[in-house]
């Protein structure tokens, strides 16, 4: 069945309401292509999204999906994966959704190493609420709520992931379609938590972190001879505040996903018609 699946099968017939030119179009296309290329189909895929422009993705994609509350997409994805290790789980979030209100969940989803893919559409601004500073906004980025800039350093999501014990850390640029798809695909194929921070420019509210900016400044790790299995090398790239990179920064090839560590293998949706056969043993325990 899967060999016949095309990436357009993951597309719904709903037209996106993202602004023309929004980076999220490219981000989503890459996610759909990565899912199709890795042999998944809409009926065995679960997409979870939070709130914000990124949260709309579940509507524009076709699969089992849940559009949840702000910042809590990762726990939902965790629940889906635990109950159904057979289901492919992809989680989408934004920089506000993931690194502000959902920062606590991010740290713990990373360290649990749940086998799912997490794509964060990072545009360094709050778009849907019309242009306030986000956790990844530059410290001098002027917005309606930070007229003189946030005056605090931006969150480095890659470093946060590294410090939390991530087994897969990558960054991509939504406009670099092939490379973005390739990176997301690696995250999907990774056994564990595949984290991809996607530069997904906001053409309406962010005139600093633009397509041109990323095109001119992004350094591709493919051309840098970077070895993602080398932790020290990954650390250097991730903590390098002078450059912006795309590519897979770090991958632990020995990663064992949470459900395997905990011996969760069964499809939990199937249960007997009544109490389990040996259920009276549960009572006898209390003799």
């Amino acid at each position, binding site marked *: 069945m899967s060999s016949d699946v095309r990436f357009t099968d993951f597309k719904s017939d709903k037209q996106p309401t993202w602004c023309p030119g929004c980076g999220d179009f490219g981000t989503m296309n890459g996610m759909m292509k990565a899912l199709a290329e890795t042999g998944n189909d809409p009926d*065995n895929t679960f997409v979870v999204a939070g709130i914000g422009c990124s949260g709309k993705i579940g509507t524009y994609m076709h699969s089992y999906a*849940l559009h*949840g509350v702000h910042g*809590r997409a990762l726990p939902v994805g965790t*629940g*889906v*994966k*635990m109950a159904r290790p057979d289901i492919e789980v992809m989680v989408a979030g934004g920089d506000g959704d993931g690194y502000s209100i959902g920062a606590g969940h991010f740290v713990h989803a990373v360290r649990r190493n749940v086998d799912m893919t997490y794509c964060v559409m990072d545009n360094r601004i709050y778009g849907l609420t019309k242009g306030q500073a986000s956790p990844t906004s530059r410290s001098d980025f002027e917005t309606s709520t930070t007229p003189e800039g946030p005056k605090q350093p931006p969150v480095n999501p890659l470093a946060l992931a590294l410090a939390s014990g991530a087994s897969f850390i990558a960054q991509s640029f939504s406009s670099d379609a092939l490379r973005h798809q390739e990176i997301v695909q690696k995250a999907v194929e990774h056994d564990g938590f595949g984290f991809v921070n996607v530069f997904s420019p906001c053409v309406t509210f962010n005139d600093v972190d633009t397509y041109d900016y990323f095109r001119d400044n992004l350094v591709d790790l493919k051309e840098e001879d970077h070895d993602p299995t080398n932790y020290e090398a990954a650390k250097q790239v991730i903590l390098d505040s002078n450059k912006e990179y795309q590519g897979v920064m770090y991958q632990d090839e020995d990663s064992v996903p949470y459900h395997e560590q905990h011996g969760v293998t069964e499809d939990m949706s199937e249960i007997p018609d*009544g109490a389990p056969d040996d259920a009276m043993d549960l009572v006898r325990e209390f003799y």
Partner: protein
Amino acid sequence: MAEDLNWAVGGEAGDGIDSTGKIFAQALSRAGRHVFTSKDFASRIRGGYTAYKIRTSVDRVQSVVDRLDILVALTQRTIDENLDELHEDSAIIYDGERSWEAEIPEEMNAVDVPLKSLAEDAGGAIMRNIVALGAACEITGFDVEYLDEALEKRFGGKGSKIVENNKEAARAGQEYVQEHYDLDHLGYDLETTDNDYVLLNGNEAVGMGALAAGCRFYAGYPITPATSIMEYLTGRIEEYGGHVVQAEDELSAINMALGGARAGARSMTATSGAGIDLMTETFGLVATSETPLVIADVQRSGPSTGMPTKQEQGDLNMALYGGHGEVPRFVVAPTSIDECFWKTIEAFNLAEKYQTPVFLVSDLAMSVTEQTFAPETFDMDAVEIDRGKLVDDDSVDEWLDEQGRFRAHAVTDDGVSPRAIPGTIDGAHMSTGLEHDELGRRTEDQDERVQQVDKRNRKVETAKETESWDYREFGDEDADNLIISWGSNEGALAEALEYLEDDGIDVRVISVPYIFPRPDLSDEIDAADETIVVECNATGQFADLLEHDTLTRLKRINKYTGVRFKADELAEQITEKLSEEVPAQ
């Protein structure tokens, strides 16, 4: 009323009070006696007063009373805290060699046993509580061999040497009392029977019910007094292919459980007070996305952090009204420990049949209290599973629209839509907390909004017609006086009846396990001269509901000291309340 014995062990947290009490309770249960336990503990790990109390009788016991017959006191505070309940025939077992000088009222039986040195002789000071248990057996004429059985159960895993040492410690306590005191068992002769009872508390019953009901996924965050549900499931749920996740917070816990439920697993989370507040954010999403989820709230004293280790039934309004907007829900509140088991199973069935969140509301008193039951009380053959309108690869077809899209939120007569879980071919669909159309896609269309709101509310109407929302009643059916209660007060009320009967007061008691939907009690209230609503909160949240339902002013008995109702105390309060004037209509 059969002869009952009220026993307690008290000391500082960390003194092994809980395990000492549990061992004695198990010994009594092994001897075919009924047991009802209660705990008094502070919110700290070490230090602070803590006590474990046991009421035991050959007849069923389901409440505590204001009387203490035997007290094992490891500290002076244990004596001071319980002075009100001690009486002139009470015996107090204490260690006179300890640094504190016990001040024991003269009229009581002071039983000074060198607990520590006898324990050391038997193999270690840690066993001083077991020495006290041996002494208690001697004082009450209870065969110490039952204690041996409980010690084997408790320490069997640690090797025969440990078991033998403990048995020796118990014998040392027994013999010391034999040699130094002539108490003639204080008149007690604890009868034993051949019955094999099981001894469990409310949280264990909830956990056992969840496993019986096929719960496979549990996510929670530790909070008193709900944590022991998670502890029970951990290690057991795996045997059925399930899993427990300790989440980073309650927000995560309920979202994980939501994910598990949407993936098709019977899923659950449990918390208390402050944790429910955090979960409320996602509660509306659970309801609007029509996800079957069981959310247990084991109430404790609030508001805010309140008194975390004390009893209260103060979250009823939260369970009924919590969350912004208007969402259908079921609120089920077990009234006894055995009902904790059955109502948990029912909660899972309701959740899946109606694709709604179900609040399972329990309380601290019930959650930590252990009680004996005949094992058949938990007859697993009687467990029924109803998964509702789950569709499969074949039946999904009839729910597809013209474009072949699955109508996950189809508007139906009964308000319940088909449910396709991931993996069902052609069942892929989107769900959201946004108002949505039949396909689950966002809409602000006025007609679709009204259709979906009505559809969700119709589930409650269907459930009201289809399910039984009954109550339990006891006492005199024709009595002029009606007492209504919810939650764990039922046991105390059942026993209060016996005191009231002795005083010639006839009472009909109705105990309601359903808060929403709930039975209509108008006829019952109309038929009574006087109605009193009993609950462990200050404002009478359940009484408010009944007044709203029946347009009748009701008398109220409210306790919010942090301590559960006691049977004899409740009987007194009822007598007093009945003599008060009826409130103005």
